[in-house]
């Protein structure tokens, strides 16, 4: 059989020029002149098949060797990190003689229940002052609440009901939201309503190729917003122009390899933010260099649903589908503490939301079963379960956040409500 130069079929595989390229690049470079090439083609098709098989084998061997190298390096990294973990926060606290905080049954009270949403609440955010909260719900609305009076100052009907996240701008004049339509909408709260009585969209941020899972304005910058998405990337946006400034990830190995679910911007250094993903890792990013993550944090055994910076800006917490919260050191990558509550049955509740108190001593963690544990971060013990208190939520906790002055915690739930919790206890005499 004779084949034209550049056209070879072996079985069902169209090899063509590529096969020849491969043969000559990998078996016997440099490439011989065309005449002998054709001769080679004609000489024995069986040899081509063998040649191709050899090439494929060589490719596979090379690929396998590289993958094995990666796995070996990862294992070495794991072992080296394990050696550096000489203690954890709780063991260190025991050495210092710390004991767990003691809370009475009325020390945390539900001061307010914000009712108004008609479907699951997915997200909330406090203003930096003046005690307002914006919440997002599957009913397709954002509601802005005055927390002191429980009044709704704005009810914003959204273009898409499938909202997953919302955020207040630092000035408190705008709110952002995003969801399953992959678009982030910005609303100016001072804009006049349109003739239907709805607040108009002031900016649309389009570009994500997957759902928007989380958004946060850069502190002190009303014009910059960071979003995370199911398309495995995070994006820094210029809200004024609606343009993407930087895209973080999207190309392995520089970023996440699965949906990104949550972000948290460092309050002490707003150029740094951390993201949590379905690939079971958290990653630290520098907005000045989007080409690759600064650090990747391993440890969780499931999706990292929520991340939040520790108040000192040097550590951050994570919450995961594996039922644990963890505290990581931002700079070194050390896993400083695991917050894990033993459960009798196999049904481990997922951690859906976390927040730190203003001193970092308390870690509030919302779970898929409606519990909201208050962890003493130093001794790694649960000191209160808000889910067992009077007036607690009746469904999954989806979001939580602390007021700017640290005096109140807000939780949002699938039970359609938001609740405000504050310290209602006494200062006891010893």
């Amino acid at each position, binding site marked *: 059989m004779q084949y034209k130069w550049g056209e070879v079929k072996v079985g069902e595989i169209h090899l063509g020029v590529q096969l020849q390229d491969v043969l000559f690049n990998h078996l016997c470079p440099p490439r011989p002149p065309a005449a002998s090439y054709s001769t080679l083609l004609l000489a024995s098709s069986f040899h081509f098949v063998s040649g191709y098989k050899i090439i494929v084998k060589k490719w596979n061997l090379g690929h396998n060797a590289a993958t094995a190298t990666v796995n070996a390096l990862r294992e070495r990294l794991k072992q080296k990190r394990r050696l550096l973990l000489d203690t*954890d926060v709780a063991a*260190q606290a025991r050495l210092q003689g*710390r*004991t767990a905080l003691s809370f009475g049954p009325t020390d*945390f*009270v539900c001061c307010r229940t914000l009712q108004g949403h008609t479907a699951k609440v997915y997200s909330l955010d406090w203003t930096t002052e003046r005690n307002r909260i914006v919440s997002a719900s599957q009913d397709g609305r954002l509601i802005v609440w005055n927390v002191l009076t429980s009044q709704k100052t704005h009810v914003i009907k959204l273009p898409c009901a499938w909202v997953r996240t919302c955020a207040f701008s630092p000035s408190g004049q705008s709110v952002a939201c995003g969801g399953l339509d992959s678009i982030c909408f910005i609303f100016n709260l001072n804009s006049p309503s349109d003739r239907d009585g709805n607040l108009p969209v002031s900016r649309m941020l389009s570009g994500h190729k997957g759902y928007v899972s989380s958004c946060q304005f850069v502190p002190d910058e009303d014009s910059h917003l960071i979003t995370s998405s199911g398309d495995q990337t995070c994006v820094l946006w210029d809200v004024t122009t609606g343009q993407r400034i930087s895209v973080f990830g999207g190309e392995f190995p520089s970023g996440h390899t699965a949906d990104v679910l949550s972000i948290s911007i460092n309050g002490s250094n707003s150029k740094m933010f951390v993201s949590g993903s379905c690939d079971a890792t958290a990653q630290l990013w520098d907005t000045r260099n989007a080409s690759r993550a600064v650090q990747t944090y391993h440890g969780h055994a499931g999706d990292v649903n929520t991340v939040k910076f520790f108040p000192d800006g040097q550590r951050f917490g994570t919450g995961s589908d594996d039922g644990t919260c963890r505290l990581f050191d931002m700079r070194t990558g050390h896993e400083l503490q695991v917050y894990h509550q033993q459960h009798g049955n196999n049904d481990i509740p997922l951690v859906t939301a976390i927040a730190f108190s203003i001193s970092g*001593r308390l870690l509030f963690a919302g779970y898929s079963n409606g519990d909201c544990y208050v962890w003493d971060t130093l001794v790694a013990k649960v000191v209160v379960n808000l889910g067992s208190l009077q007036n607690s939520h009746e469904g999954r906790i989806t979001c939580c956040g602390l007021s700017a002055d640290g005096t109140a915690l807000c939780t949002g739930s699938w039970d359609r409500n938001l609740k405000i919790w504050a*310290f*209602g206890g006494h*200062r006891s005499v010893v």
Partner: protein
Amino acid sequence: MAASYSSCVPSLPSPCPKSPPRYPDLCGKRRVLVKVQMIESEISFLEEELKSLEGLQPASSHCKEVDNFVGANPDPLIPINRKISKSHRIWKWLCGKCCFNFRWICCSCSCPLHLKSPSCCACQPSVNLLRCHGLHCCHSKRKYCIIPMLLLEVGILFYGRTANAVIN
């Protein structure tokens, strides 16, 4: 035999090779090369990370930093334990007696000795949310606590204030 064999087995169609597809390369070589490049990148990142671990301090120093930071910052959501002197214990007892005997007088938790309210004035959630952190949560009941408050103020003036606040 051979003839019958050849009539039973359908003859294979003559090969008709196609030209290789143009860009994008769907047949694999470029894709494999890209994969190899990505793996090589990852190898170099991992080697970099391994090198960076060499100078790192162990976790204990960072755990201590966490402990120091938490200890240095007050928190409105955390109860404060206070130690008081013996003299104030007398007033504590006296105030407790007053509140017990005069049930219509509630010892508010704004009492300077920060006494626990007796059951006659269970602390209700405050209207003023921001001040609902222990000191003022029985704000509305303050007007009833005049007599014990006066006694306390006299006592404090007489014995002096020696309470030490200990935050554990």
